[in-house]
């Protein structure tokens, strides 16, 4: 587990990505349609959305991060929204999440975008222990309308 390798998601990883993507949805109590998964996977491979995978020493996919860029009225550089981060429960606490976040950040800077931001549920204490070490929580909360 000491050697985690991070690079873009590969087309051949679709079945294992499905497992992690489903587990992530289960964590948030949602079930997205297969059409959404197909669309997102396709967009990742068309570089409309970006996907990174973390692999253990055997090459097995154990974590995923999805991010995208969008315009920002407060900056000439684009914002980088890290929309999804998920690490297989079996490998939690071994630095995989941190490495994924750092890799997203490196990609954002290489692309000339600002540092990534992300949202997490306020009750997600385990994730927040990690986030509080590598990110600022400036006190903004989200409101939503619609689905």
């Amino acid at each position: 587990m000491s050697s985690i390798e991070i690079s873009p998601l590969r087309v051949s990883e679709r079945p294992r990505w499905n497992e992690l993507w489903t587990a992530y949805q289960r964590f948030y109590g949602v079930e997205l349609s297969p059409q959404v998964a197909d669309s997102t996977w396709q967009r990742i491979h068309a570089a409309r959305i970006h996907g990174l995978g973390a692999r253990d020493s055997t090459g097995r996919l154990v974590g995923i991060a999805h991010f995208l860029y969008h315009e920002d009225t407060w900056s000439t550089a684009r914002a980088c929204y890290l929309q999804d981060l998920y690490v297989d429960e079996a490998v939690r606490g071994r630095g995989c999440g941190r490495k994924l976040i750092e890799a997203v950040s490196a990609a954002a800077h290489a692309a000339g975008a600002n540092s990534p931001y992300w949202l997490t549920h306020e009750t997600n204490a385990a994730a927040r222990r990690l986030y509080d070490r590598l990110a600022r929580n400036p006190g903004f909360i989200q409101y939503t309308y619609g689905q």
Partner: protein
Amino acid sequence: MIEIRPVRQEDFPAWQVLWDGYNAFYGRAGDTRLATEIIRMTWSRFFDSYEPVHALVAERAGTLLGLAHFIFHRSTIHIGPLCYLQDLFTAQAARGQGVGRALIEAVYERARAAGANRVYWMTHETNALAMKLYDKVAEKSGFIVYRHFL
């Protein structure tokens, strides 16, 4: 009668007063004022049909009372776009007259027309006044924002 409409080129001076007021609320004033190049770029995006960045203003009797800026972007959990209401501001003198609500509802309408099922925004957890309105027109999702250091 308050009219909500897309911003126009000739609104620039009045828009800038509102935009400065909004930015000052978030501490971007004086030495920390937004750079002129950012203001110019954001303004120009409102008029560039290739850019998913939009601005509405609230007007009454020829005076601009408020602004709303919103952006469409992709989402991993939707097929259609998300609508991010990034900025919302009502001039101090026009508060409490439904300007903010009218702007938000106009953004909802435009989001629907663009195929976006969800509109979202962020506000500071201490912004109690704004939250009185937001609690009526939207839901707190329970999600909070983190930003990576560097």
